[in-house]
């Protein structure tokens, strides 16, 4: 998702004003509010299409949930239904799998998500503020310098980053991993934050300055509290990119560190045992269930955050 957001941002620069991240809806009634039911055959076609796509999208999820409660024989004999009884044995086994401690994987991943988000805001916020409030050339150049980073696909960086981290003695460590993940969030965060801060009137900065407030305090105490929507967008984007990242934790942390995120843990638990469906289905179900519940509850915010991040940028 990080790439999704960053690349698009570059492309929309000249077509859409980057400033307000959560812009008010257009004054015009949205095209979609029009009540036009369509002719009966058209409606039938529409519903048929929707039914087909819903089946194609949801069947894997159905198989995952159902087969997580079945024995291998039963899975092979009747994958879409069940002939034997249902059991929670394999779920219990997956939960206590020595190759992947799911609860620990969740804890570590959540820790990484929190650290990256906190560092990202603390690093990107102040720079964005200086860039947005300065008319000096050097800060415009700095913005371009950061923007260049949105063009670089992170896969290309994995090898040289290993080199850098080894040189710094941070290879295979949490600080090394968090530093790199945080860095990947910086270009787009700074771009979005700076665009947003420009929409905040400078009067309040001046008022704060007159009251004897330093620049640093002005940002954190006066401007930052106004940035809630744009920070929320960025947190959603970063959470997804850190949560779903597989390459970076796999290479930087590596199996030898014993630090498994949800994705690298799934790989360790399932990778070698793909034909044992009593491992595959229960492990995948346990690994994704909390995230799916979170998604269903938060889906409006998540989808609108992602949309805002990639189209308004």
């Amino acid at each position, binding site marked *: 998702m990080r790439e999704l957001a960053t690349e698009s941002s570059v492309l929309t620069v000249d077509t859409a004003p980057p400033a307000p991240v959560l812009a008010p809806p257009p004054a*015009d009634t949205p*095209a979609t*509010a029009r009540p036009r039911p369509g002719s009966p055959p058209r409606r039938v076609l529409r519903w048929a299409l929707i039914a087909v796509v819903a089946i194609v999208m949801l069947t894997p999820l159905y198989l995952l949930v159902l087969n997580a409660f079945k024995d291998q024989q039963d899975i092979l004999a009747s994958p879409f239904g069940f002939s034997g009884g249902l059991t929670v044995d394999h779920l219990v086994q997956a939960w206590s799998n020595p190759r992947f401690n799911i609860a620990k994987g969740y804890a570590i991943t959540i820790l990484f998500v929190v650290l990256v988000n906190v560092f990202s805001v603390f690093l990107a916020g102040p720079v964005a503020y200086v860039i947005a409030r300065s008319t000096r050339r050097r800060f415009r150049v700095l913005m371009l310098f950061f923007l260049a980073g949105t*063009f670089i696909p992170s896969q290309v960086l994995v090898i040289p980053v290993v080199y850098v981290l080894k040189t710094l003695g941070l290879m295979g460590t949490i600080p090394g991993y968090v530093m790199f993940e945080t860095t990947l969030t910086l270009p787009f965060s700074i771009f979005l934050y700076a665009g947003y801060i420009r929409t905040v009137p400078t009067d309040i900065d001046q008022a704060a300055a007159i009251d004897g407030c330093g620049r640093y305090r002005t940002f954190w105490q006066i401007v930052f509290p106004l940035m809630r929507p744009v920070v929320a967008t960025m947190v959603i984007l970063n959470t997804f990119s850190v949560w779903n990242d597989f390459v970076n934790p796999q290479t930087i942390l590596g199996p030898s560190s014993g630090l498994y995120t949800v994705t690298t843990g799934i790989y360790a638990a399932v990778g070698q045992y793909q034909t044992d469906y009593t491992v595959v289905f229960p492990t995948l179900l346990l690994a994704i269930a909390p995230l799916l519940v979170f998604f269903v509850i938060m889906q409006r915010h998540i989808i609108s955050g992602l949309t805002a991040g990639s189209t308004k940028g």
Partner: protein
Amino acid sequence: MNRRGGLATAAMVLPATVLYTVMLIVPVGLAIYLSLTDWDGYSADPAFVGGENYGEVFADPQFQQAAFVTLLAALAGTVAMNLLGLGFAVLVSRTSRVNSALRMVLFYPHVLSALVVGFLWGAILGTNGAINSFLTSRGAEVLPFLSDPDWATVTLIAVLVWAGFGVNTVLYVAGLQTVPQSLLEAARIDGASKWQTFRHVTLPAIAPVVTVNLVLSLITLLKTYDLVVSLTAGGPAGQTQTLAYLILWNSFHDGRLGFGSAQSVVLMVVTAALALIVTKLRRKADQGAAA
């Protein structure tokens, strides 16, 4: 600016700038440097080999196959994801409870990581997977979704599209909702058919969204890695390896990080070139929308 102000500014600017430079800008330069060496991942002083790695990259049949699979997946996937994405966006763009549930159904694979998606589809399409178990129980032949190279390539692309087009749908819905109602109304009054309205009013109005979607899909697909790991593991016989998969395999499995760097520099150049070409081709349409 007084001295204290200058210090405060430096304290605000420097941490991010330094981190960004060390972890992102320096590595890009390093990637190019390492691609000219035989670095194995351990030695502190890799030997300089000039353009040797690049010569070997282009002569390598594995690289050619991976480049073919990657480009095929990127181009076919981009077309499919955007046709499906735009089509379903039109179907579900009206605001209603059913439609927002449908958007969620189309989008949810994105919440799962590509790794999970690959393992799940592997369990469905494998030789003993759900579909083949079902077929054999009915006395039918097993379908080689993942065991035949050509089938596996098509399967890989299909799963990529399955997992990804919901994102395009959601972005297109957001685009469609910004098309001014007055324009559509005017077209309708002028007697335009639904298709004509879509072709000549809606599509030009959302041109920038189309460009963003095309470039996004293209760039995302060019980096396909996780799904190859979990769905096909590059097989059968290395026929479904993508460039990203090959790069990481050569680098971290075979310990040839210099060689892998050369491949990743090639991938970086190809990605940038394709993104630029699409943007350039779409420029006219984009400007039409802005006018």
